[in-house]
C-alpha cells in the first residue's frame, strides 16, 4: 500500500478516504452512536456538525481506534486498497497515515514545543521529512518557532491549539481528523487556525474530517458536511449552501 517512489509534498499523492458504515458505539451501558454512516473522499474537507454531547468526538474516537464500535465497519481506503480499521489500536491507525488533533489538544505539557513536534514525527514514514515538516510548521505558525523551547503546558490556549495541529501534521498524515479546533478560542484565533488548516491541507494534499459546532467557521473550509443529532446522522449536505439552508443549522448554528 505504500508507493515505491519517495513522497513529495506537491507531487501527486495517492487516494485516501475514510468510510464509516453503519457504526454503533458507546461507553459501557451508555449507547452514543446509532448506525452512523459517513464518507470522507480523497482530498475532501468534510465537517461533522453537532452541538454538545451529540457524538462527534465518539465518532472520531471510533475512527481512531480509541474506542471500538459494537457494530458496523470503518475502512481506510488507500490507493484502492481497503483496510479495515476495526480491531486496530490508535498507534496502528496512526501508522497507516491517519492523524488526530484530539479534543482537549492532549499536548505533552512538560515537554517543550519543539519536543512535542519531534514526538509527532515518531513514525518511520515521518522521520524522513522531519526537517522539512518542522520548518513548515514554524513557517505556518511563527509563534511556535519563537517559543520552541517553552513548555507546551505554559502556552496560551490558542498557541496550544496551533501546536496540536502542527504536531499532528508532523506525522506526515494522509488523513487528518480534527476535533473541534475552535473550542476555547477567541473568534479571531479560530479564524486563524481554520485558515491555517485549509492552507496546510492544500500543502499536504490532505483528506480532512473536522468535528465542529461553530458553523460559520467550519463552512470556510468545508466542501460538504454532516449534521449529527443524538448519535444519528440527521442530514448530509452535499455542499455548504445545502448545509446553511437546512433547518437544523438555521435553528442551532445561525441563531434563526
Amino acid at each position, binding site marked *: 500500500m505504500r508507493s515505491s517512489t519517495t513522497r513529495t509534498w506537491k507531487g501527486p499523492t495517492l487516494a485516501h478516504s475514510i468510510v464509516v458504515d453503519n457504526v454503533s458505539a458507546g461507553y459501557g451501558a451508555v449507547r452514543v452512536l446509532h448506525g452512523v454512516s459517513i464518507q470522507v473522499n480523497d482530498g475532501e474537507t468534510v465537517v461533522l456538525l453537532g452541538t454538545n454531547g451529540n457524538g462527534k468526538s465518539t465518532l472520531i474516537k471510533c475512527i481512531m481506534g480509541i474506542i471500538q464500535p459494537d457494530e458496523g465497519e470503518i475502512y481506510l481506503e488507500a490507493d484502492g486498497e481497503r483496510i479495515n480499521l476495526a480491531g486496530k489500536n490508535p*498507534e496502528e491507525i496512526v501508522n497507516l497515515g491517519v492523524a*488526530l488533533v484530539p479534543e482537549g489538544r492532549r499536548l505533552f505539557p*512538560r515537554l517543550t514545543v519543539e519536543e512535542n513536534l519531534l*514526538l509527532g514525527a*515518531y513514525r518511520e514514514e515521518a522521520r524522513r521529512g522531519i526537517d522539512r515538516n518542522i520548518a513548515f510548521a514554524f513557517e505556518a505558525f511563527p509563534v511556535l518557532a519563537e517559543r520552541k523551547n517553552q513548555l507546551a503546558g505554559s502556552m496560551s490556549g490558542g498557541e496550544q491549539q496551533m501546536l496540536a495541529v502542527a504536531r499532528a501534521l508532523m506525522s506526515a498524515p494522509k488523513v487528518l481528523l480534527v476535533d473541534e479546533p475552535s473550542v476555547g478560542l477567541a473568534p479571531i484565533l479560530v479564524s486563524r487556525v481554520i485558515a491555517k488548516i485549509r492552507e496546510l491541507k492544500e500543502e499536504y494534499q490532505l483528506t480532512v474530517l473536522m468535528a465542529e459546532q461553530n458553523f460559520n467557521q467550519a463552512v470556510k473550509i468545508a466542501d460538504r458536511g454532516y449534521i449529527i443529532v443524538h448519535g444519528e446522522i440527521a442530514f448530509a449536505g452535499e455542499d455548504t449552501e445545502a448545509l446553511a439552508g437546512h433547518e437544523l443549522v438555521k435553528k442551532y448554528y445561525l441563531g434563526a
Partner: protein
Amino acid sequence: MFSIEFLLNALVAGILLGGFYAAMSAGLSLSFGLLDVVNIAHPAFIIFGSYLTYYVNEHFGFDPILAGLVFAVPSYFLGVAVYKIYYNSFEKTGAESLRGLVFFFGLFFLIEVILIITYGVDYRLVRAFYIGKSTSIGSVGIAYRLFVPFLVGGILAAVLYLFLTKTFFGRAIMGVAQDSLAVQLMGVDPIRIKTVAFGIGIATAVIAGSLLIIIGPVEPTIGREYIGRVFAVTVLGGLGSMTGTLVGGLILGVAESFTSSFFGPSWALAVSFGILLICLAVRPSGLFGR
C-alpha cells in the same frame, strides 16, 4: 577550628561520592520520575548488581566495572520481565498505587533473602588494581575507589541525558507518563516504551551495584541504607531530569560528607531524609523539575 585542608578534603570526598549517588539514582529517576512507577526495590537491584560483580570478580578475576557493564544486558531483560508482571498485575487494572508499592516492597525483601541464603550476612568485597590506591592534588587526597565510580556515574548520567533528549525513543519515555493516549496518537505503543525504560532503569541499577562494591564492602541488607538516598536525589534533582539527578547526587554527597566530618558518620544517613523533607516542603518539583 577546622582547617581549610580539612574542609577541602571533605568537599572533594563529597563530590566524588555524589557522582556515585547520581549513578544509583539515575534508574529511579527513569522509573519513578518519568514512568510514575514507584520502584522502591531499586536499591535491592543495586545490591544484586554488587553481588553479581562480586561473584565474577571473586571466581574469575573480572574487573568490577566491566562486570557491571556486561551484567547490565541480562539485567535489562530482568527489568523487562519485572515490569511486565507489574503492568499485568497492577497497572493495567489501575491498582498500582498501593498494591504496586507492596509488590516492590516484596521484591525488595525477596532479593535480600535470596542474597542472604546464597551468601550469608558477611561483608563481601572486590579486588581491582585501582582499589586501595589514591593520588593527591596539593593536600587533597583522591581515592581511586571513589574516583572511578564518580567518573562512571557522571558518564552514565550524561549518556541517559542524551538518550532522553536527543532520540525519538527517549522523548517518548519523557512523554509517556504525561499522556499515554497522546503517545498512542504519535503512533507509539506506550506499554512498550514503559517496558524498555524500566528495563534500562534496572540495568543502570546493576551498573551502580558494581560501583557500590568498588567503594566499599557490601552485605545483603545494605540496600536499606540507600532507599532514602536514591529518593532524596531523585526528588531533589527534579523528577525525570538527568541533570537534576547529577546535581542532586553531588549535593547529597557533599552534604553527607560535611555532616560526617563534623558530626560523625552515624549522622550521614539522616541527611538524605532531611533533604527529602525540606525539598518536598519548599520545592516539590525539585531543582530541575519541569
